[in-house]
């Protein structure tokens, strides 16, 4: 079967979903009012609250939510075959992510542009805020630790990508400075920056002297180096230290100096990458070699599939973006459908091409099964398979495969690096906020909070021996990522459902995905915490996962109880604007 059919099915689903389902939700459920004065107009300040054209806002929203996650999740989940992944990505986007992102946007617009965190603390009190903080803290700690490993792994596997990625830093600083001080346009400089990066990638893939290959500098994978580490571990060690130092510096600099211009360059990469992959797919017309379903999977797809693919189907982080920045810039309430729902569709198309890239990469079903022989191998090799597959798709546009793979690696590393420095910054904010909450003033200082964030992340990466060898300690906690992220999405859907119920509207459109999501999260958590990690089941226990897992399981149960009580009482939401 041709990979194009998968794309056709997915895009058809997204089109029908957007054309009909989102229209129904917008008109009948959220009842968008074109005359409602949005916070962008009400509190217009030229900075945060600015009425913005809906296409522009969609672009901002889409590039803010799309990163490495919609690629990593599907690339691993095809372990269960391409069909379950495809179904969850399409149905998840249409029925869960769409209403979630769209709903978070509408809810926030109807509440002075406040974030879901603030709205939740109004609804379930201060406990909700602390709960939010802890969930996000665990999430970002995992992200820091795992992304440090992922970037190091890509640097080691694709040494030609190192130079262009490092070149992006001074280029971004240059753009930031140029725009801030001279107020020029960013478009031309950032396209030049992108061109410089890609040209460097092309040159570096052909000139071995420009490839920074630490493993070979240390005499190969098995050679002995300092502290009893072999060449490979030493390379990991150095890259992780370099990344942590980088994360420290980048997260303490003002955002306009490095983070923002980097994001801007990366947004071009997203557009360029998507265009290359879909056009390549059309021209190359590759055959799907991966099996439709995997009957021999040793880990059941139910419920793990729904946790493995978070971004690309539904993700809690999207609610944070929807209610954090997008809602403050919505020009008309009716634009929310396009920005929120179509933003989710944008991310769905990224997840879709990630699935296609992986399932068409392998020469034969046997090759696929060899790489995806177990869930653990799928987790380890998924991203590599995506980069290979994406490189292969790019050959449809006559780009040589080696160069294409390096460029895709550059794109993935750039996304991952942006996620890394954003999450270190986020962790710093949360530590500072917890510091002020519990009156520990030392924690509110920038360098103290950043040091704690970076050192704890580095310790998690380097100290414990992870499942993928030295430097992969973050993976010890990674099984919790999907569940905590989905939990966040569940809370947002719960808030929207309560808001809808209190206005006597049909709240099934958000309640059903919420129940589905919380049920899957709970199922996966109970299975893992009670049977896999506690040591009571057949497998050997894992204390670390057991403790953190129990904590999140407790949070989930708590949220469920809150959900039942909040849905059965009416007055809790009294200070929220209901007027249509």
């Amino acid at each position, binding site marked *: 079967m041709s990979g194009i059919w998968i794309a056709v099915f997915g895009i058809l689903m997204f089109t029908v979903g957007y054309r009909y389902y989102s229209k129904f939700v917008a008109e009948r459920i959220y009842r968008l009012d074109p005359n409602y004065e949005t916070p962008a107009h009400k509190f217009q300040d*030229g900075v945060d609250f600015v009425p913005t054209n809906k296409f522009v806002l969609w672009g901002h929203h889409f*590039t*803010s939510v799309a990163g490495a996650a919609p690629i990593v999740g599907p690339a691993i989940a095809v372990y269960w075959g391409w069909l379950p992944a495809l179904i969850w990505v399409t149905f998840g986007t249409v029925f869960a992510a769409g209403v979630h992102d769209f709903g978070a946007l509408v809810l926030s617009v109807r509440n002075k542009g406040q974030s879901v965190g603030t709205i939740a603390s109004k609804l379930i009190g201060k406990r909700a805020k602390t709960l939010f903080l802890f969930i996000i803290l665990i999430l970002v700690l995992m992200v820091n630790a795992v992304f440090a490993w992922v970037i190091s792994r890509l640097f080691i596997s694709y040494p030609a990508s190192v130079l262009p990625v490092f070149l992006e830093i001074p280029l971004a600083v240059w753009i930031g400075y140029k725009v801030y001080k001279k107020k020029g346009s960013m478009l031309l400089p950032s396209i030049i920056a992108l061109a410089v990066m890609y040209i460097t990638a092309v040159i570096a893939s052909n000139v071995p002297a420009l490839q920074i290959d630490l493993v070979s500098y240390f005499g190969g994978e098995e050679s002995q180096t300092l502290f009893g580490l072999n060449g490979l571990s030493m390379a990991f060690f150095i890259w992780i230290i370099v990344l942590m130092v980088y994360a420290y510096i980048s997260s303490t600099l003002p955002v*306009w100096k490095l983070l923002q211009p980097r994001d801007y360059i990366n947004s071009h990469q997203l557009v360029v990458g998507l265009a290359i992959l879909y056009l390549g797919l059309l021209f190359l017309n590759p055959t799907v070699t991966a099996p439709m379903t995997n009957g021999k999977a040793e880990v059941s797809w139910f419920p793990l599939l729904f946790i493995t693919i978070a971004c690309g189907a539904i993700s809690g982080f999207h609610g944070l973006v929807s209610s954090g920045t997008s809602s403050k810039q919505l020009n008309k309430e009716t634009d929310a459908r396009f920005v929120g729902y179509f933003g989710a569709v944008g991310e769905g198309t990224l997840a879709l091409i990630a699935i296609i890239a992986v399932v068409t990469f392998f020469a034969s079903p046997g090759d696929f099964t060899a790489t995806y022989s177990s869930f653990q191998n799928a987790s380890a090799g998924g991203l590599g398979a995506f980069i290979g597959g994406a490189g292969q798709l790019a050959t449809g546009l006559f780009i040589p495969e080696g160069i294409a793979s390096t460029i895709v690696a550059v794109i993935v590393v750039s996304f991952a690096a942006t996620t890394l420095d954003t999450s270190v910054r986020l962790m710093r904010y949360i530590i500072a906020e917890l510091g002020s909450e519990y009156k520990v003033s030392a924690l509110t200082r920038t360098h103290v909070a950043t040091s704690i964030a970076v050192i704890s992340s580095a310790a998690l990466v380097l100290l414990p021996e992870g499942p993928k060898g030295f430097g992969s300690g973050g993976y010890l906690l990674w099984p919790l990522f999907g569940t905590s992220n989905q939990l966040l999405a569940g809370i947002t859907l719960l808030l929207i459902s309560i808001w809808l119920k209190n206005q006597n509207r049909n709240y099934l459109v958000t309640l059903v995905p919420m129940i589905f999501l919380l049920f899957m999260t709970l199922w996966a958590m109970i299975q893992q915490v009670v049977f896999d990690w506690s040591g009571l089941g057949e497998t050997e226990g894992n204390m670390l996962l057991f403790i953190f897992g129990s904590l999140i399981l407790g949070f989930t149960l708590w949220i469920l109880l809150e959900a039942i009580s909040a849905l059965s009482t009416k007055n809790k939401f009294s200070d929220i604007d209901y007027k249509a």
Partner: protein
Amino acid sequence: MKIKNSFKKLIQGYDEMLSLSHRTEIARELRDEDDLFLFLCFSEMFGIPNPAFYYTLELYPYMLEKFHDWHLRMGMENSPLDGVRCC
């Protein structure tokens, strides 16, 4: 000509789309810088002796338009200056 114009519009839209968050951030940083500057100019009002007060007085006429937004952001509901009655 028509194609050229629509292409130009497309590029403009694309640029705006991607630079939105960046522009917001820069506007916020610039506003913070401005706030700090105004704070220094009005520092006497906050009880901070300012040896350059006599000279900063000359700047007031240029600041009047920004003054209202600034005192609101600084947490003062009404104008703190008798001479400047902006609200």
